[in-house]
């Protein structure tokens, strides 16, 4: 057993650090650090910088313009990006649709869409969830009816993250209503500029319009935009979900979050001393830090086992439950560390126009805390994950 990285991996980490130090625009890093909302242009700018270096698609094979990195290198890259305060890579095209097209798409689809994802020509969003469906994804009601060489799509998607920026959406649609739920689903690519597509923002409890409703009213979609076979969409959807979970542990985000809590707690004064010296606060902080040390090691153990980038099964459910609980607890500590200045709801402050209310570090904490309640809900709620863990482990499998 050796808890150290290999020489090559250490050199790789150094290379990533140097690249980030040179190429990450300081105004972007400052925005990420301050928890300010990133614009579409910010996201596209960072994607273009990574793409120029050839590092935009860590999980893609080299033949499609990806990095071809193994799991350990991807982990190092993600960790360094989080610590440096880079914008997140927007996952919908790169982490989700890309692998599905490579596995199940036609040659024309691969040739057309994959380069456009890398070059930023398309911004994809995910049309999975529907009103009332919750974690029960297979209960898709959006209908696609074949009409010659087109489908006519009617229905509604919801929780569509950053759909306001997107020009393309990949959708689960029901093509056969008369069979078992999972058997009548197809995977369809829809241009959002098609007549009949309407996007309406949903304001979240933190005040941001991060997600949307997407309505389909007699939307005409060419059959060329069907991925794989009709009625096999559930297989592709599940494949996508395993890729959605590859960075599920969020170790880098937690480390960066913990460092931010410490920065706040060193500056906040409580009873004439820095808050970080308050034994009650220090104990809560230490406990989550210990949990994170253990979880990071669990993550590395799973990564080192997942040879050839294969997506793990029940382990990712375990990482999701623990990793999200840790991130949420860190958000909670940040909110408490900020004290009364966690209360003002000043959306302009988030944009950096208002410097008069409270310390800078207090501005994003409540918004982040509220926003990250989503972590234990999306991607299969933590209760769904517990069901998966119990069923797998009780069946005697897994290890």
């Amino acid at each position: 057993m050796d808890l150290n990285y290999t020489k090559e991996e250490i050199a790789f980490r150094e290379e990533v650090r140097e690249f980030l130090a040179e190429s990450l625009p300081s105004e972007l890093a400052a925005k990420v650090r301050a928890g300010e909302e990133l614009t579409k242009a910010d996201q596209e700018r960072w994607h273009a910088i990574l793409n120029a270096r050839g590092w935009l698609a860590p999980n893609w094979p080299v033949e499609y313009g990806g990095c071809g990195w193994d799991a350990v290198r991807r982990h190092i890259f993600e960790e360094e990006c989080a610590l440096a305060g880079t914008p997140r890579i927007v996952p919908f095209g790169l982490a989700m649709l890309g692998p599905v097209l490579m596995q199940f798409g036609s040659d024309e689809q691969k040739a057309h869409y994959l380069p456009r994802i890398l070059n930023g020509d398309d911004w994809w969003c995910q049309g999975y969830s529907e009103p009332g469906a919750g974690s029960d994804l297979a209960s898709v009601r959006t209908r696609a009816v074949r009409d010659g060489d087109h489908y006519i799509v009617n229905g509604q998607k919801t929780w569509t993250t950053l759909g306001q920026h997107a020009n393309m959406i990949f959708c689960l649609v029901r093509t056969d209503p008369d069979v078992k739920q999972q058997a009548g689903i197809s995977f369809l690519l829809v241009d959002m500029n098609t007549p009949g597509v309407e996007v309406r923002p949903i304001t979240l409890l933190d005040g941001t319009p991060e997600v949307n409703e997407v309505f389909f009213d007699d939307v005409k979609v060419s059959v060329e935009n069907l991925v794989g076979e009709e009625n096999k969409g559930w297989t592709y959807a599940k494949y996508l979900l395993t890729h959605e979970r590859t960075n599920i542990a969020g170790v880098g985000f937690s480390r960066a979050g913990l460092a931010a809590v410490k920065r706040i707690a060193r500056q906040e004064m409580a009873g004439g001393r820095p808050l970080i010296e308050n034994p009650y606060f220090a104990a809560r902080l230490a406990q989550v830090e210990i949990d994170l040390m253990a979880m990071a090691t669990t993550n590395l153990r799973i990564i080192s086992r997942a040879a050839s980038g294969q997506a793990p099964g029940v382990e990712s459910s375990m990482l999701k439950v623990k990793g999200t609980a840790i991130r949420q607890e860190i958000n909670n500590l940040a909110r408490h560390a900020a004290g009364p200045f966690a209360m003002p709801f000043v959306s302009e402050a988030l944009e950096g126009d208002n410097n008069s209310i409270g310390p800078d570090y207090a501005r994003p904490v409540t918004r982040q805390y509220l926003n990250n309640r989503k972590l234990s809900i999306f991607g299969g709620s933590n209760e769904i994950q517990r069901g998966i863990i119990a069923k797998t482990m009780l069946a005697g499998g897994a290890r």
Partner: protein
Amino acid sequence: MNFELTEEQQMLQDTLRRFLADRYDSSVRNGILDSDLGYSPDIWRQLAELGVIGALFTEDQGGFGGSGIDIATVFEELGRAGVVEPMLDTAIIGGGLIAALGDDAQMPLVEFVIAGETHLALAHGEAGARYDLDHVATRAEERDGDILLSGRKAVVVNAEAADYLIVSARDSGSVTSQEGISLFLVPRDAAGVTLVGYPLVGGGRAAEVALDGVRLPATARLGASGAGYTALNERLAAAHVALSAEALGAMESATALTRDYLMTRKQFGRAIGTFQALQHRFADLMVEMEQARSVVILAAGHLEDSAPTRDLNTAAARNLIGRVGRLVAEDTIQLHGGIAMTQEYELAHFAKRILMTDHRFGDADYHLERFVALSSAAA
């Protein structure tokens, strides 16, 4: 990065696991728990013959292992089988202290320990000291070139079986000073040593030890005068790895019993493991078990590192194992229901063994405080 055991460690694990599965079932263990000695000399001899004790010492010390991972490998298996034999006290602490501090005349004791022929006990804790390592009221006085020890030692694990007690006593300093603490090798049957023995909740035995003017030659001193605190602190790092790994092994057995029970026990016409309320509690146990496994790897893997790194990781391990251990002990009992309340059912022993780990050399809160102090020193 590599989380695999070496071939030797894998062999050690396999051998020990097989041996204990064959020879240490619950009826054997219950017999040992009921015995006057509180441990089995026969099992101890066989463990020595298998090389299990030797695996806890480095080659320089006469063994063939001694790394943090070696220690964790052995203790995880001991924990898995619910072994109550005094491996921690005789080998890790006693043998380890002599190997670190002993002079030429004392060193052969390490060989006897590895051969399974000598038992040791650390007589350090005192009433009122809780887990404070620097709290030593017992005095050592020079008298005509000899040493006189006087004091009371509390919950001295394995004292009755021990051929020697390793006694901490003050040459100088106030009761809670880190300076002035020294260690002495005291034959258990020395004049002035009185033991009042009793069984422990988690298995094994301990004693209250009275030292009334115990007269020892100067050669009984183990290590330099005043070196006791540092030596104990160093050695307890290994004890923390052993305790954490042992608790992990016991937790693995407790959760394995629970898994089997959930799938066989029927209520309302269904296996109780099909009820979601129980499934989710079990899932949380599985998640926390991965945390426990990881933190034992961290503590074991960093045992040979610099003191600040080593201690930060052992503090983290003892804190997390204390918390998760309690969760596992309490929830595995709850998930079983009434059967787990009986002494006869195997889970009882594992649960008690896990819980009592959190009372040796600091509990979860003690180690959390230690972690905070170590982190702020590093910041």
